[in-house]
């Protein structure tokens, strides 16, 4: 019996002796770090394991005679085209070309693997996580942002990430909300600045999936923020990035700022409300019967102060009551005490210019610094603009976008509202709203996307039919027609 058992043990041991596998699509370790593949100048090449593509973010100023410090696994040999790379030292790559396919051979023992390396100008973001990213709660992750600038050190932060959006959640390409943590316990929120943006706790990766141009929201905010004049134009900045979840590319995203207490420099007296749906309530047609006593009041949502700590609706309820229920004379005499009319005029003209049908009920915020100041409108989510609806359908250029607030302002004409509207339109048409300026903003974003080869990337990855040239032509034509229509309406 003992002999048989000994033989069995011997046999099992023989069958089981050590076997290893080489892995490229590794899972993260306990610190959500992935093993080194290829690092140039302390910046990782991001890796798309499905297409066996490596990408390295680099700016145009650094591509001539590129001589990076190269790091890879000690047990591998790497050849880039005909250059055998030396590990742990500076290697001269010569002059490199952006968006050109370079063949990379990785030899490890008896195994040879071939990959394609692209040098690209687009900043890359790699989210490393051990779990699926869901529609809340936030999944612990590590976010690494690689800047193209050669001397700029990559950002590497503990983050929580979740899907964001409502109707956009039905699409395969999801948008994400990101919160920064100081460690992996998720107990200690932190702040971080990226690119040249303000330090903030929360950030957004906007998938822009429905937008046929991938630039409507970004261009709209650029225009809004560029508008000069006495009114406040609070808005976010954003940058195009290519996003990777572990070793899988998700294509181009807009990495954006977010309206937080920190971003708005808000104190304890600040209030911020958002319209969550296009309804008669958020378009000021009807007043919500129930008194506000929680985070939501009909289709309005309190964002600041933090509704888990304090519920404050007094001033905003008064504004709603005034717009919906007041007599014409009361409205005319008091509306300018509640809301900054310069800001309202600019918002109305701006939203009409870009055709933001989805921005006069939902996707707008009402912000007020304290009891003594007035409400300001802040735009949000302008994907359905410039001739397309939020579902990418073509929209007419000859429709005035309005709601009960804007209608009553025109009807009652408080504080010379109508004249100021016309004068402001005239002023803006000579500057920020000139056709050449508008086409310039759009064209520069299209040129940026073209330089990142976004059309091919998105079409291959998401099986869509982006045609950025056609879309640019469509937008330019729509803008021209839109300006003509609005010039007539505002008697320019």
């Amino acid at each position, binding site marked *: 019996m003992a002999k048989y058992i000994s033989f069995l043990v011997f046999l099992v*041991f023989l069958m089981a002796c050590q*076997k*290893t*596998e080489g892995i490229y699509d590794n899972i993260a370790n306990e610190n959500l770090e992935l093993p080194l593949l290829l690092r140039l100048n302390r910046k990782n090449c991001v890796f798309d394991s499905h297409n066996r593509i490596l990408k390295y973010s680099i700016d145009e100023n650094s591509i001539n005679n590129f001589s990076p410090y190269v790091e890879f696994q000690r047990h591998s040999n790497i050849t880039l085209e005909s250059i055998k790379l030396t590990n742990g030292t500076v290697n001269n790559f010569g002059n490199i070309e952006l968006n050109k396919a370079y063949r990379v051979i990785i030899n490890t023992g008896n195994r040879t693997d071939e990959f394609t390396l692209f040098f690209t100008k687009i900043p890359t973001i790699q989210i490393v996580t*051990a779990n699926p990213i869901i529609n809340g709660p936030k999944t612990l992750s590590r976010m690494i942002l690689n800047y193209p600038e050669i001397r700029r050190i990559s950002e590497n932060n503990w983050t929580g990430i979740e899907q964001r959006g409502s109707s956009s959640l039905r699409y395969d390409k999801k948008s994400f909300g990101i919160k920064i943590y100081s460690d992996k316990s998720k107990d200690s929120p932190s702040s971080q600045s990226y690119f040249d943006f303000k330090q903030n706790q929360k950030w957004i990766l906007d998938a822009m999936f429905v937008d046929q141009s991938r630039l409507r929201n970004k261009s709209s905010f650029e225009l809004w923020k560029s508008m000069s004049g006495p009114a406040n134009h609070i808005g976010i900045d954003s940058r195009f990035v290519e996003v990777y979840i572990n070793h899988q590319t998700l294509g181009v995203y807009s990495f954006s700022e977010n309206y937080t207490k920190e971003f708005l420099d808000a104190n304890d007296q600040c209030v911020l409300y958002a319209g969550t749906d296009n309804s008669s309530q958020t378009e000021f047609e009807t007043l919500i019967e129930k008194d506000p006593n929680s985070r939501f009041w009909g289709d309005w949502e309190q964002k600041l102060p933090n509704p888990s700590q304090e519920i404050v609706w007094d001033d905003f309820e008064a504004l709603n009551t005034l717009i919906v229920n007041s007599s014409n004379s009361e409205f005319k005499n008091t509306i300018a005490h509640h809301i900054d009319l310069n800001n309202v005029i600019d918002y109305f003209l701006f939203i009409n210019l870009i055709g933001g049908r989805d921005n006069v009920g939902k996707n707008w915020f009402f912000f007020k610094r304290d009891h003594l100041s007035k409400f300001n409108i802040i735009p949000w989510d302008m994907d359905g603009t410039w001739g397309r609806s939020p579902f990418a359908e073509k929209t007419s250029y000859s429709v005035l976008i309005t709601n009960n607030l804007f209608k009553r302002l025109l009807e009652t004409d408080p504080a010379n509202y109508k004249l100021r509207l016309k004068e402001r339109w005239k002023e803006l048409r000579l500057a920020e709203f000139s056709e050449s300026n508008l086409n310039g903003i759009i064209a520069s974003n299209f040129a940026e996307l073209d330089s990142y080869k976004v059309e091919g990337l998105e079409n291959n990855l998401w099986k869509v039919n982006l045609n950025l040239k056609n879309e640019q032509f469509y937008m330019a034509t729509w803008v021209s027609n839109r300006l003509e229509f609005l010039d007539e309406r505002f008697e320019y």
Partner: protein
Amino acid sequence: MKLVFNIIGIVFLFISNSTWCQEIKTTNDIGLWAGVGGNFKLNKKWKTSFNQEIRTFNNAIKIKKSITELGLTHKFDKQLKLSLGVRYSYARKRDYTFVNNIRYNIDIKYWCKLSKHLNLLYRFRYQHSYINLFANTTPDIENRSSMRNRIKLQYPINKHAIYISAELFREYVIYKKPSFNKVRLNIGDKLKTNLGDVKYGLAFERELNNSYPLNYIILKINYSFNFKHG
């Protein structure tokens, strides 16, 4: 016997299949868990234990862990026991550096007789480990918990108690959702001798929820001396 070990060594040299790549993940391995310890019976209800064990991996030739373990068991009745254990281990990490770990565990054990020669044993274990306990900074200390459920069939015959068992591990760590991460199957024997018990057997472990799971075969051997109070 010496000849057998020589043959095993030569076979290992030829069969080891190393496909090196960016990360080298071991998918098959064998190891040895060899230990010696003692049980000290305080009275009918209470027992303490001590065990020192060495664990190897990488074709059983590299040290994976050195473990020192203390235990205390309370017997409620013939069928139900509660145990507490504390373990110190000096263990090798994935990057081959060594760390100091502390683990405690709480066990509930249930025993019943299925037939004259067949016993059923169930053990629930909760364990919590502090990995790299002597790290300089708190965030480097990793907390790891597991819930383990083991079911065992035992066939006592003369001085032997031959057994088979299956154990499922569920892991709780901060950086990922709780998941079943390992299953362990055992076959072995516990032999009573005049001085104590010899336990020997084979275990097969497989990682779960992993694209490249490790299949691990372990030869287990342990000798524990039995002492009685008074």
